[in-house]
């Protein structure tokens, strides 16, 4: 198979996964909406009753409130999942780095929790909107964070800071807590330079004496001829 055909196939495969995931998250949201309304209706009907008419009414209210909280959490998950899925719709688009990275970070939180690693993020308010590949940018950040999660000891900390540098954005990932490194890069890490090259992004890494690492990715808009050339 020609490399171009292979590349096109991979892009379409990604779009296909994205579409199915987006569809599924919409379906979840529909079910959540129904549960929320049914739960709300129970609450409304309880409120319409005369005082003392229902035994355990305080308990019902507490249960209703608990269900509402879970619905809100699940709806937020769906919102991030839906956003993440739609990133795969097309290879290039105008994107908010904050939105793109927040989705990625949200979806990685569970893994960080399981490893008992803190995942902290901070975004400058005035970040530029850039024209680039949102899904690939998420993948690039994944290639930094995922190996760190695998290699970091419990109690470690991953801090992601995004700041404006003119028309570019600088994504600084601080990995605090010495990584138990294998001799070679992990399969994810060794993909990173290539991925960043496609994004037209710069990369620098440094490790201090305690073994804490700082990874800096500088990204800006990409030439719109990218999709034709690749």
């Amino acid at each position, binding site marked *: 198979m020609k490399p171009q055909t292979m590349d096109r196939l991979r892009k379409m495969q990604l779009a296909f996964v994205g579409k199915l995931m987006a569809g599924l998250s919409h379906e979840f949201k529909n079910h959540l909406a129904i549960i929320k309304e049914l739960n*709300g209706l129970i609450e409304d009907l309880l409120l319409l009753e005369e005082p003392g008419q229902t035994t355990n009414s305080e308990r019902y209210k507490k249960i209703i409130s608990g269900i509402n909280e879970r619905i809100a959490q699940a709806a937020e998950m769906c919102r991030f999942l839906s956003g993440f899925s739609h990133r795969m719709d097309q290879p290039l688009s105008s994107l908010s780095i904050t*939105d793109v990275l927040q989705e990625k970070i949200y979806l990685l939180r569970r893994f960080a929790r399981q490893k008992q690693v803190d995942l902290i993020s901070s975004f400058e308010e005035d970040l530029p909107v850039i024209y680039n590949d949102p899904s690939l940018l998420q993948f690039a950040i994944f290639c930094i964070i995922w190996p760190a999660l695998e290699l970091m000891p419990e109690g470690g900390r991953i801090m992601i800071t995004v700041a404006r540098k003119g028309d570019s954005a600088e994504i600084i990932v601080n990995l605090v807590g010495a990584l138990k490194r294998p001799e070679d890069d992990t399969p994810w890490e060794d993909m990173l330079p290539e991925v960043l090259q496609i994004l037209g992004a710069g990369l620098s890494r440094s490790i201090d004496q305690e073994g804490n690492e700082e990874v800096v990715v500088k990204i800006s808009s990409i030439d719109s001829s990218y999709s034709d050339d690749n």
Partner: protein
Amino acid sequence: MSKVKVLLVDDEVEFATTLAERLNIRGFETTACFCTEDALALIHAKDIPDVVLLDLKMPRMDGMETLKEIKKYNPTIEVIMLTGHGAGVPLSAVGSEKHGAFDCVMKPADINELTSKINQAMVKRQNAINKGEGE
């Protein structure tokens, strides 16, 4: 004072009937329709709602097409889009702003937010009617 007439259009029958009941408890006069064709038939039969709550994604004729039809028929009917879309949901994100939607609410919706938006939409409609627009 007469009740605000709300037409709720959503193909999820259980969602539509439950939400309609909740809105009626709050003093609205809500009719639920489960397809856009029925909703448009109702409007064309001169059963004019004040506010339409319209699901964006529906089979056959979707919410956006229905919005255009409603606004073409009577521009004073205010339409609030319901969507399962992701982040933020400004009107422009779903493209309904340019077709005259009043606002967009994300599912699952908060009933208080929804009733507040219906009331705001009603004020806008009343102002338009007072100016003699549309009707």
